[in-house]
């Protein structure tokens, strides 16, 4: 039984209302690690969106055509993590062979994405909601867009924050957390959107 939620509802829901970072706390390592510079944030956002879209498509095909018909849904964690790890490797090799400029821009972020909980998270969210393949792809795209959006906003704020004089013990990570709290509070205003 597939969920009947419309594609546009899923997209807006994943991108803004149930934002990966601010309400589901997924993908926090790159969020705090890479959000110091705007250019890095954009590259990371695109890389994550791309891998999430591929991973969600692959895992959704596996879920709907292998796991459900053979009733082995309990194997999902092992299968998903292996599929994601293999996929990231393939993407890295393909990009390195075909587009060296793109590889230099995204290269260092790709291996990091394997252990990014956002990618496995989106696969599990899609499976929990019984999304069809099209719905899974839209939800991954929405999640990726939302992730990139928050990463860009955060890096803009942090570039300015570096110039400010925070108390010594708050500098760096703690003040980034407080900023994220304010950002999450602002995003809660969108919760009535749908």
């Amino acid at each position, binding site marked *: 039984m597939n969920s009947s939620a419309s594609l546009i509802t899923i997209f807006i829901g994943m991108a803004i209302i149930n934002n990966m970072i601010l309400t*589901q706390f997924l993908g926090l390592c790159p969020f705090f690690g890479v959000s110091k510079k705007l250019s890095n944030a954009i590259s990371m956002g695109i890389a994550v969106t791309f891998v999430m879209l591929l991973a969600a498509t692959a895992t959704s095909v596996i879920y709907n055509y292998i796991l459900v018909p053979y009733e082995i849904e309990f194997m999902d*964690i092992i299968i998903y993590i*292996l599929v994601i790890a293999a996929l990231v490797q393939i993407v890295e090799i393909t990009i390195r062979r075909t587009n060296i400029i793109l590889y230099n821009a995204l290269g260092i972020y790709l291996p990091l994405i394997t252990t990014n*909980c956002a990618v496995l998270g989106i696969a*599990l969210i899609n499976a929990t909601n019984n999304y069809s393949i099209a719905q899974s792809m839209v939800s991954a795209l929405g999640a990726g867009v939302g992730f990139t959006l928050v990463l860009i906003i955060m890096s803009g704020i942090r570039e300015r924050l570096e110039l400010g004089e925070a108390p010594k013990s708050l500098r760096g990570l*703690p003040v980034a957390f*407080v900023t994220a709290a*304010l950002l999450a509070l602002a995003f809660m205003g969108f919760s009535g959107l749908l």
Partner: protein
Amino acid sequence: MTEQPQISNAKKFTKEVLKGFVIANPVFVLVLGLCPALAVTISIDNALGMSAGVIFVLLGSNIIISLIRKITPQLVRIPIFIVVIATFVTILSLVFEAYFPPLYESLGIYLSLIVVNCIILGRAEAFASKNTVMLSIADAIGIGLGFTAAMLIVSLIREILGTGKLTVFGYTLFSIPVLSEYPLTFFIMPPGAFLVLGLLLALFRWLGVLKNE
């Protein structure tokens, strides 16, 4: 004479346990495993359930990875570690689903996400793949308890401020008169998690427990 190595082993064991608990606290010092620390610290129950899960997976994967460390090919070690960890997470989620359904429901996908928790892969790579089984067990216990302590601190603050009372497995331990009628719901919502953890990180630094970056 035969007692000498035993004593030093016991000392080493305690040293490893204490290290993870205080000096290398995974959440407050190494800033690892943030997703669960923020997502499931809404209540003490969730925090305890999650910590028990992490300790189980960490212990299991540390033991197995330490046992197979000599026959693990260097090139494919990371995929092997991930499969071992994923196996223990699958066992854990099946056990939780069967015996603790309410906890399983409220932890949701975060239980499965233990598999990508940086703490566990980090310990496998940095410790268990290089040390003996006994020391790996000590390391798992220390890091696991350090994680539990961090989860308890965050969830205590969030539950008390966010609901005005403290409830552990259905028993209300105490409730604060005014606060329980007008709870600061902000703290059990997502922004509250970021704020509490950010201020705790700052506090630990200020206390000098944390080294500056």
